[in-house]
């Protein structure tokens, strides 16, 4: 699903966020991306979502080489990805329902289909009764779940999450991680950046750990015979 081929990313000013990173995340796999802050987790996710472009190397997403993608094709790529942020990125000028509906509106779904899918997504994160609320009236955990509903409402093939449990207490964090495991069960590929090592160990999913921009340890290598060849 995602293949990194000798990826380096140097930010203007000379800071090397990633150097010579290679890995392969197979379709339908859930994996964690771990490391201290500044290790390059966010940069790696941004490269996949085409928010940043690599300085060197090649990235393949579902067989498409992202390094050659023209800017005008970026929206098409992003429609297949669901992105979840630590700070939710919810819009407070509209209701929960309208926040979650955004990806469907952008892709031109019919009104009835939007209603159905938004309710289904809110139901999955347990917030069906809050659809008319303004996101600002919700708790931190609830807002994070609205953000997750928005990321899955259009049934993306890939789900990226950047510190989705960053502000949450351990119980809520476990709940959120369980949600991701459930999406993964239905076939979605999931990559979650997190520094919460205890929680990751509890879930038992493989992880890639980054340290100062390079891969320190990769559980996927022992899982995936294809990746070993890279």
């Amino acid at each position, binding site marked *: 699903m995602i293949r990194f081929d000798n990826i380096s990313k140097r930010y203007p000013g000379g800071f090397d966020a990633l150097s010579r990173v290679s890995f392969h995340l197979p379709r339908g796999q859930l994996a964690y991306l771990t490391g201290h802050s500044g290790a390059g987790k966010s940069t790696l996710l941004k490269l996949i*979502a085409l*928010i940043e472009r690599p300085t060197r190397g090649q990235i393949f997403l*579902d067989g*498409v080489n992202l390094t050659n993608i023209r800017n*005008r*094709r970026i*929206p*098409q*790529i*992003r*429609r*297949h*990805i669901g*992105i979840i942020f630590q700070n939710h*990125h919810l*819009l407070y*000028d509209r209701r929960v329902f309208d926040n979650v509906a*955004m*990806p469907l509106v*952008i*892709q*031109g*779904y*019919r009104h009835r*289909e939007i209603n159905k899918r938004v309710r289904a997504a809110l139901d999955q994160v347990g917030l069906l009764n809050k659809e008319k609320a303004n996101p600002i009236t919700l708790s931190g955990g609830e807002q994070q779940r609205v953000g997750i509903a*928005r990321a899955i409402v259009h049934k993306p093939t890939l789900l990226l999450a950047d510190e989705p449990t960053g502000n949450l207490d351990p119980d809520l964090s476990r709940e959120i991680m369980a949600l991701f495991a459930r999406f993964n069960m239905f076939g979605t590929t999931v990559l979650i950046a997190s520094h919460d090592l205890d929680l990751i160990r509890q879930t038992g999913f493989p992880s890639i750990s980054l340290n100062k921009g390079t891969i320190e340890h990769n559980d996927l290598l022992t899982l995936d015979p294809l990746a070993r060849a890279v």
Partner: protein
Amino acid sequence: MRKKNRTAPRKGPQKKSRLVSYLTHHLQMLIASLGYLTRQPVSTLMTSAVIAIALALPAGLYIALDNASRISADWDGSTLISLFLKPEVSIQQAEKLASRLRKSAEIEAVSIIDRDQGLKQFQKISGFGDAIEFLDDNPLPHVITVQPVVDQQRPDKVVHLVKKLQSENLVELAQLDMQWVKRLYTLLDLAQRGVWIVGSLLALAVLLIIGNTIRLDIQNRREAIEVSKLIGASDGFIRRPFLYTGLWYGISGGLLAWLLIAVSLGILENPVQELAVLYHSSYELTGLSSSDLASLILISCALGLGGSWLAVGRHLSDIEPS
């Protein structure tokens, strides 16, 4: 136009066809942007008023000029050419020339003032009555006055006619006191150019006002733009609400400008009529015709769209998710 995409999933029945969804979104944004503007009535009204004033000024000048040139057209009817004949020309020769000129297609009317008649007139008007009594003989020649037909009364055409008449054998001098007509036309021409310059500058101002307003809108909705880009909104999708907002500014500014002009004309109408009565004229002010109104609205729409296009082009690409 969007290209067909290889990686796009197969369209299911749950999605609208591309054209339908494109048109639906346009319609939605047309209405949504109007809603956005009406939710902040004070600032919308202020922006529209600035646009309206900037548009009403050149449009008002245009109307003033239009009215002025209609007045001067009325005055043109009195253009007369005087042909002073050579002293030795007899009255019979003068009449022959006059009847020949009457047949010319360029000439509306011809009349003869013979030298005795001319002297009497001169005595009466000039106030030299007594002095002229002492003259031995009449120094005046016969005079033929020629009134050109109406479509010959443009200054350039009249000058051409005067030259032709001057070349007649019997004519000593063909004179046209039309310096003032020429001056008036030159003045109107100058004023017209002035209106064009002022109009262009103010149109530019409208473009910049709308551009700046849209720029602020873009800044205010920065977060929504970032999120939209992150979940795969195309540039066109993000642009649309801002372009329609600019269009609405243009429409409301144009309509408000029309209102300003109508009110101003209403205020001026009575005094103008009183003035016309004093001059024994039935002159009436004319306002904007429906085609003028249509072009006013069209121009303001174009400026609205143009201004927002400029702002969107410059500032939307600055906002990228990070």
